[in-house]
């Protein structure tokens, strides 16, 4: 191995150790463990190319279901552990429980469409930005702004009509609820396999490994944080912090005046669960990109309207994810794996949105002349 490569890699390993140590000293062991969990997720997603938006797209456009089946496997593994844990420790752990409602369904649909325009979901946008995709970084800025703006109107949207919060374990009990969840995931995997072309049904080895690692890290997140893996809350909080610096009285708004959110607004981001894992995701993806010394692929120009479109699409992603009570991680992955009914509804609405988003993207991309290879994963 050339000395220069070895030096970079030693530096990257030191970055991991320094990050964990600094967070440990400043904010304590739980925050340090969460930043390490986020780093693990970022390295897994980037290193093993495990994503959400991309697999949905290739199922629709190329009849390749391997990535989506791997998602179901990861969620199933996580659910198999999370359900018993949540049942055994109800006062210390909680799931990603949210109500199904008109705005939630519409939000999931719009998120699904916009994530195909950006070609990156909630986690994908963070990972792509960390791994050096400028378009994802621009979309992330919009995502942060949109997530915050969504908090300002969440109550109004939810009041349009919502059911109470339903969980499968609440309706059917823990054992049957878990069985139904695993059965539902298996049925979906079979449907996806039937839709896929021969040779594009069995996940590759890397996807099996990634599914296991993502599930394991998501379970760790639940055990350490007491709540499931999420993305959007942290981004909305980042937007709220910036808005406060800009002079806005964020704490007086309906959402941020609730005690849980007021506390998060007042306290350091290094004590916020989703902020820590989000930072870990971005940094973990950066580490993998530098470790592999990925060749610079972004060599073409992009139009000014293209930048504006990506910023706007990111903003729509953030706003719609907030209204939908989460993105592919907080609502789909964590919702389904902890038994929330809204996770299932979110998946079907977002998948329908993705179907439309792929068509929309083709039209928009040709209008603003963005080379397709510029938006990865």
């Amino acid at each position, binding site marked *: 191995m050339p000395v220069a490569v070895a030096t970079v890699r030693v530096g990257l390993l030191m970055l991991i150790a320094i990050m964990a140590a600094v967070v440990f*000293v400043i*904010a*304590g*062991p*739980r*925050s340090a*463990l969460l930043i390490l969990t986020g780093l693990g997720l970022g390295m897994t997603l980037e290193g093993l190319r495990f994503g959400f938006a991309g697999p949905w797209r290739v199922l629709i456009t190329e009849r390749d279901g391997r990535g989506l089946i791997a998602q179901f496997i990861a969620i199933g593994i996580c659910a198999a552990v999370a359900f018993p*844990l949540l049942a055994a420790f109800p006062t210390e*752990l*909680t799931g*990603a429980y*949210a*109500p199904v409602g008109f705005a939630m369904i519409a939000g999931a649909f719009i998120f699904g469409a916009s994530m195909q325009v950006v070609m990156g979901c909630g986690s994908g946008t963070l990972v792509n*930005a960390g*791994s*050096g995709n*400028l378009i994802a*970084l621009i979309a*992330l800025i919009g995502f942060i702004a949109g997530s915050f703006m969504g908090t300002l109107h969440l109550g109004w949207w*939810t009041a349009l009509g919502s059911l109470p919060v339903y969980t499968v374990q609440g309706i059917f009990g823990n054992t049957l609820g878990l069985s139904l969840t695993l059965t539902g995931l298996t049925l979906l995997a079979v449907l996806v396999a039937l839709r896929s072309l021969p040779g594009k049904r069995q996940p590759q080895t890397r996807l099996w490994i990634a599914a296991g690692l993502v599930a394991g890290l998501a379970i760790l997140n639940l*055990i*350490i*944080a007491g709540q499931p893996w*999420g*993305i959007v*809350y*942290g981004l909305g*909080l980042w937007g709220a*912090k910036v808005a*406060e610096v800009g002079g806005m009285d964020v704490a007086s708004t309906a959402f941020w005046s609730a005690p*849980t959110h007021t506390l998060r607004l*007042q*306290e*350091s*981001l*290094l*004590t*916020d669960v989703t902020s820590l894992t989000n*930072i870990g995701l971005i*940094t973990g*993806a*950066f580490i993998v*990109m*530098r470790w592999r010394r990925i060749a*610079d692929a*972004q*060599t073409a*120009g*992009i*139009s000014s*309207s293209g*930048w504006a479109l990506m910023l706007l699409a990111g903003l729509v992603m953030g706003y719609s994810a*907030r209204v939908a*009570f*989460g993105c592919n*991680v*907080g609502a789909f992955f*964590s919702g389904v794996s902890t038994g929330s009914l*809204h996770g299932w509804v979110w998946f079907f609405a977002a998948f329908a949105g993705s179907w439309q988003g792929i068509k929309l993207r083709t039209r928009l991309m040709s209008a603003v*002349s963005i080379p397709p290879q510029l938006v990865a994963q």
Partner: protein
Amino acid sequence: MKLISGVMPARRTVGLLALTLIIGLLLLDQVQSIPIDPFRAPAPMALGSGQAPAGGHCSNL
């Protein structure tokens, strides 16, 4: 269609820019947030801590 630039920045540059933005955000946060008291930090893991989870999540209303 007018292009802003003919060459996009390298991946390493963009990745470093992303990390710089995160550091900037943390510094901004440091100025306005209540200082962390490390001696009042929560238990390393919620499981077994005897405490209810108090973090924010996307599923929160």
